[in-house]
């Protein structure tokens, strides 16, 4: 009986311990999923940002906390390593996370540490359903409404495809988003909303998994079909051509009307006249 009691007590204590442990683990995992997973994996290879496997070995905890809270300030402060990551990953800035507390970041590091020990498959990537690029296009343009009433993508974004009037210029042009971020990255951004403005717009109107898949499929298609350098090249040719043409025309006109009457006949008289203020 004594033994039983003891056993029960021990088990109870252990349970309480493990329970609280699991609780902590669970909240870290959720944070990781909502904040980090859009761009990072643990042992699953790089997405938009680097694979975070064993990140605790590569940097001091202090450095990671600083970087997570504001990667920009670390880069700007002249940290060479931070800068090299920034450059290595297509110069996509990691969004700042000023809302995460130090404890939360440390929890995340602990979570990554435990996860790194496990085989990479343990964090199952959310498998997206098969996307339909046509439906994705309609969603992007706004011909079909998002299930949860989110704003159509083209209110802020543009893609450069044939037969489509340009979209908004408020946010990044998404023509080559897939080249920059990879398909997983794009779908991660759509579902995870790592960017503050995206979060603001879509937190209350989440994009469904099917819609995410459709949009991703559409953007993959756009990326493939549109030549990589088309936009920028045409733009610069147009500008240079326009300026050259203008200069030629102005020179031509100035010869053409070189004898025109440029001033009133009495100009010298008017110039001499005393003027009131």
């Amino acid at each position, binding site marked *: 009986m004594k033994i039983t009691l003891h056993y029960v007590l021990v088990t109870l204590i252990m349970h309480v311990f493990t329970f609280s442990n699991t609780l902590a683990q669970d909240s870290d995992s959720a944070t990781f999923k909502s904040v980090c997973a859009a761009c990072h994996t643990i042992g699953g290879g790089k997405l938009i940002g680097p694979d975070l496997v064993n990140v605790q070995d590569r940097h001091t905890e202090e450095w990671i906390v600083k970087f997570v809270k504001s990667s920009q300030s670390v880069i700007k402060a002249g940290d060479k390593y931070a800068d090299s990551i920034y450059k290595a990953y297509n110069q996509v800035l990691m969004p700042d996370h000023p809302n995460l507390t130090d404890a939360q970041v440390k929890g995340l590091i602990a979570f990554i540490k435990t996860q790194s020990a496990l085989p990479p498959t343990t964090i199952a990537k959310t498998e997206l359903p098969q996307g339909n690029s046509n439906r994705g296009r309609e969603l992007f343009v706004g011909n079909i409404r998002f299930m949860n009433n989110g704003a159509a993508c083209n209110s802020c974004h543009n893609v450069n495809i044939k037969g489509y009037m340009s979209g908004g210029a408020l946010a990044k042009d998404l023509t080559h988003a897939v080249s920059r971020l990879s398909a997983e990255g794009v779908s991660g951004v759509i579902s995870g909303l790592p960017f503050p403005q995206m979060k603001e717009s879509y937190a209350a109107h989440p994009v469904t998994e099917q819609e995410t898949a459709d949009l991703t499929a559409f953007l993959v298609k756009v990326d493939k079909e549109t030549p990589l350098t088309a936009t920028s090249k045409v733009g610069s040719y147009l500008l240079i051509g326009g300026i050259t043409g203008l200069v030629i025309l102005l020179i031509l006109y100035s010869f*053409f*009307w070189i004898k025109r*009457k440029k001033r009133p*006949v*009495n*100009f010298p008289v008017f110039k001499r*006249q005393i003027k009131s203020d």
Partner: protein
Amino acid sequence: MDVRSQIAMVFHLDKCIGCHTCSIACKNIWTDRKGAEYMWWNNVETKPGTGYPTKWEDQGIYKGGWEKKWDGGIDLKGAGKRRGLTNIFYNPNLPVIDDYYEPFTYKYLDLIESPEGEDQPTARPVSLITGEPIDIKMGPNWDDDLSGTPDYARNDPNFSNISQEEQEVMFQLEKMALFYLPRICNHCLNPACVASCPSGAIYKRGEDGVVLINQEVCRAWRMCVTACPYKKSYYNWHTGKSEKCILCYPRIEAGLAPACMHSCVGRIRYLGVLLYDASRIEDAACADDNNLINSQLDIILDPFDEEVIKAARKNGVADSTLHAAQNSPIYKFVKEWKLALPLHPEFRTLPMLFYVPPLLPVMATVKKTDQSEQMDKMHPIAKKWEDNWLYDTSTEELWGTLDQIRFPLKYIANLFSAGDEELIKEKWKKLMAVRIHRRKVTVGDISDEKVATTLRDAGITAEEADAIYALTSLPKFEERFVIPAAHREQAIEMMDFTGDTKGDAGFGFKKPVQRGI
């Protein structure tokens, strides 16, 4: 022979007193509107002076009128098909508002409505275009009586071939050597404005030769503004159409003289019909420089000639018009007595407004006299004039003054005869002979012999001299303005069948009457 009738005019410059009544009459009737404030269809210029718009006579600036081509023909100087196309977006030789003047008024209400203050209220000048207060730069006749200022009189384009010494002589006496030049549209026989209009909005009326701009057709090309060498076509910035003198055709059609002529205080203006041969217009316009005036006067036909009358009738010229042509004061001044000349015939538009060149102040002299004797007789508090100059129009030798005239002959010749001094001399001799003859008649202090020599020199008879005197000094209203019946109904019937519109006009309602409640 293609005989047509033309309402023509003569302005007798010796009679012009420069009062601008004509300008005001015209302004009040026609151009006292928004967009037309700066226009003076009739203006009076002081010569020597730069005129309105400034230096309008200088076609190097404004490119008006016709110029002779290498093949003997003529071409518009500043307009035409090629120039029109190359300048389709920008008409480069237009006068700007500062070449005319920025029209202004004064804020008179400020004088009586200003609140009480330290200073007297003033009426500030405000632009009639912008409504903002402006500094007045110029007026429509800024050189009025300012002849001799370096900026105006000395910049007169007619001095181009007058030597510096000759100019200096003129300007020594600058305060008195000036005359007035009233100008309206010349209603030319070869109008450059009509030729230049890309829209075909300008036309010369068949029955009386009045040149008009159709306001419905005008498309604001403003080629007429460039083309008219007299700058008598104006662009209305409010309506976006060009406008010009219409010779008060509504008045003429009603048998009244145009407003400027009717109101003329000096009675300098004459208006009447001339018959001309339209088939010879081109030849006259293409004539050589030294033959321009003769060839222009040549195409004006004798209204008493049976052949002319027959051809005119065949062309549909009404008998009343022929009768008016026979009584025309213009025919007398221009053809019979050969006293009047067109202004700047070298522009080759064949103007139908003729000027009798001014004899005064040209023929007068200024002498230094001693007036002390007179001064002594005056009351001590009387104002004493200290200048000792005598403005003397009496002559010792009959033609002596013609060689000592204060205006170089060339100056007048530049204005009225394309530089032909002999022609001007001829007119002046006639004008002088009339005066000498009339002095003999009225005062009798000149010998018969001297008068006879004078008349013979001038090439006129005593009867002619009397007739010239009568039409110059004593004409009644009906003698100055011989206006034929307009026959508008016939002109309209040529274009439209009047039966179609019978009952449309006249007494009645503008809108259909609505019956019932």
